[in-house]
């Protein structure tokens, strides 16, 4: 019996088709997985179903009745609840208050007793007997907060509960609790749409799986009939060929990690990074890939283990020391932790070399200008763009400016790029990759994190895959994309 029917759903953003003609049928009491590689259209489908976007074409029907979901409120009324990647619970409120947040039956009086009774019932329904309604949410771990959010979704009398990567940042034990909760949600007669990058859990937990590729449904089939390799084949179609690599001359070791870890993020990573070589750390959200780079840049106070740069031990948890040792870091959050958006492109290119452009504490205006235009030219900015605020440039150009500030600098020995082409179009991507290769050719050691298979296969000389905070494998030779995807999404080497 189909509870939710989606027909011919399409949506494009500024000319780019995100999903095309998606058909989806969700039955009452089933756990339905939505899989696909980055950019396949998963998030768009989730946004359309939860009322955050309106489709260009197609229809959504609940119990055979067509509904129009223009806002999240509409979706709630229609019985669709979303448990988002970013938790939308309030840590400073109690569990009960969180559970009844936005509840339309609550009335306007804060009746604590009744609230607690209802909250208790909602928690019990999910088997969360150890959580007390009067407890502050901040006293719970991340996994339990996720469970509270699921309980809230269920308590909103949802017919369909959408979980968008609920376990990405959770430990195995916490994940198990989420699975148990999801099973009891389904047992209560709801449909569950489960979006996840972890293919092992998808096959173990879900009844049916729908795979998206390039915005369209490739297949919908029973989970029993699928294996991880088969799922990966559906997600990738033709596996990106491993292009013959022109291996860079391996230089001397510039960066050495010995048993480096960040509690709760990743553990026990040892790696020798050679000059002129491009390393990729491949891992999905929650794998710890991005934390490795942040840690090396001095932005993780809890980093443990030993890091040496050029033979000298690096003082960890100190971004200034990291920069002085020659580590340049480009955050994956370009806007809030990367660029100075109101400043010109020229200034942004020069941010890390201000002392080098000055004598006796004074900045030489002419050298400043000359360096800016030389770097601008090197990164492919027309002269008139240099004076414009960098915040007005496209994502690709912003990233060029961001990467460009580490280039042509005698002091840069290691370039760390956290997801360097996030939100960057195809043209910008090629330009950014060009700059990165250039830097490596100059003898800089590059370490980047990514989940994009093309990027991992094309750009990296060495790929290290990570899953849930541990290293899965290291590939010094060319490696096909499906192997990488298997390791990133399943945590084991295929075959």
């Amino acid at each position: 019996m189909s509870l939710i029917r989606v027909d011919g759903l399409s949506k494009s953003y500024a000319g780019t088709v995100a999903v095309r003609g998606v058909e989806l049928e969700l039955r009452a009491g089933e756990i339905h997985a939505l899989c696909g590689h980055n950019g396949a259209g998963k998030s768009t489908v989730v946004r359309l179903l939860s009322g955050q976007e309106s489709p260009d074409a197609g229809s959504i029907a609940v119990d055979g009745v067509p509904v129009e979901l223009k806002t999240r409120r509409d979706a709630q009324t229609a019985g669709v609840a979303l448990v988002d990647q970013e938790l939308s619970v309030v840590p400073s409120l109690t569990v009960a208050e969180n559970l009844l947040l936005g509840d339309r039956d609550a009335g306007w009086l804060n009746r604590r007793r009744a609230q607690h009774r209802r909250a208790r019932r909602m928690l019990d329904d999910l088997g969360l007997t150890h959580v007390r309604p009067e407890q502050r949410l901040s006293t719970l771990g991340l996994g339990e907060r996720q469970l509270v959010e699921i309980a809230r979704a269920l308590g909103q009398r949802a017919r369909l509960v959408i979980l968008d990567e609920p376990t990405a940042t959770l430990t195995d034990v916490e994940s198990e609790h989420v699975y148990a909760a999801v099973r009891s949600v389904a047992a209560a007669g709801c449909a569950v749409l489960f979006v996840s990058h972890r293919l092992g859990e998808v096959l173990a937990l879900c009844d049916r799986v729908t795979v998206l590729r390039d915005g369209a449904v490739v297949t919908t089939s029973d989970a029993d009939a699928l294996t991880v390799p088969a799922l990966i084949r559906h997600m990738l179609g033709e596996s990106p060929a491993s292009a013959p690599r022109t291996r860079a001359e391996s230089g001397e070791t510039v960066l050495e990690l010995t048993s480096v870890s960040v509690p709760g993020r990743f553990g026990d990573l040892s790696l020798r990074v050679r000059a002129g070589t491009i390393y990729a750390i491949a891992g999905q959200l929650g794998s710890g890939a991005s934390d490795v780079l942040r840690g090396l840049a001095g932005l993780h106070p809890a980093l443990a283990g030993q890091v040496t740069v050029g033979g000298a031990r690096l003082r960890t948890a100190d971004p200034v020391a990291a920069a002085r040792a020659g580590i340049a870091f480009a955050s994956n959050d370009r806007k809030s932790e990367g660029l100075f958006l109101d400043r010109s492109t020229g200034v942004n290119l020069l941010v890390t070399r201000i002392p080098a452009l000055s004598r006796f504490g004074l900045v030489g205006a002419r050298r400043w200008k000359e360096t800016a235009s030389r770097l601008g030219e090197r990164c492919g900015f027309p002269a008139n763009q240099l004076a414009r605020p960098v915040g007005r440039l496209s994502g690709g150009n912003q990233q060029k400016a961001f990467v460009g500030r580490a280039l042509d600098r005698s002091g840069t020995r290691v370039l760390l790029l956290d997801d360097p082409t996030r939100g960057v179009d195809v043209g910008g991507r090629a330009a950014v990759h060009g700059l990165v290769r250039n830097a490596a050719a100059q003898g800089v050691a590059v370490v980047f994190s990514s989940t994009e298979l093309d990027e991992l296969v094309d750009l990296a000389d060495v790929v290290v895959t990570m899953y849930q905070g541990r290293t899965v494998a290291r590939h010094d030779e060319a490696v096909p994309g499906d192997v990488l995807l298997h390791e990133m999404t399943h945590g084991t080497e295929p075959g």
Partner: protein
Amino acid sequence: MSAVTAERRIVRPRRTDVLPVAALLVLLAVGASTPRFLSLDNVKAILTSASLIGIAGLGLTLIVIGGTSVSLAISQSVAVSAMVFLAVQSAGLVVALVVTIVTGALITGLQGLVVGYGEANPIVLTIAAGFALTGLATGVGGGTSVSPTGTGYTVLNATPGGLPLSVFTLVLLTVAVQAVLDRSVFGRLLYLTGENRPAARAAGLPVGRVVTVAWVLAGALFAIAAAFSGAFNTSANINLGGTLTFDAIAAVLAGGTPIAGGKGSARRTLAGVLLIATVSDILLLRGYSTGAQIMVKGLIVLAVILVVHLRTTRGRP
């Protein structure tokens, strides 16, 4: 947006420029029609009243540009510095000045250390520091005023060319602070830190040091204002600073330096303090009460903030 419109935008005055220009014209027209406004004596009076607030305002400008909000302990810092200045007069003017400036730099610099390295909230911290300074001054001095122990300070009350020394000092310091902001490594880093501290941190810029240096320089500037104030009043107690904290904040804001940091200049603060002094002067000459003067000061700050806000939010996606 194409490059063509970008260039045009620079040449052509923006619509939001109309308001400040119109306001300035109105101000001049009202001034010209006010008896005695256009006299040399009156210009001197305006400059004199602007000078101390202006010098303190320059210090505050550094704090604001660095993105560390404002200091709410300016009055107390100035009062304590002035007390020190008068108390060490017996050692001679030069020594007294050096001691005062070092004291002022220390008082505010220590706060800057906590704000810069400890990432403390400057508002909360400076409120606490203000109370601490008041308590310290009252405890040590027993609540009495400090009288000068020498006569060297009278030099600061000189009026070469008919203008008080403090006015020349304000102009010189404005040029100096502007040069530091424009030309020095510290200046560039200060603007970057103020605009986006997480980004500056991630880029490995010495964020803590930059903020601390800004506060140290601010403290030195507060101390210079304090020396003039102590010399002028020939005695100092903890209440010497009066409403200086908020006058300085008003001057910085009226100049159009946004409170969010990353932008602004010493020139703007000079303009802001002159604007407020001129308006107050016109109101005074026209016989308005002190209440009206204070109210208008508030309105000026409000209007400028509005214009700055419109200018920075227009044309953004």
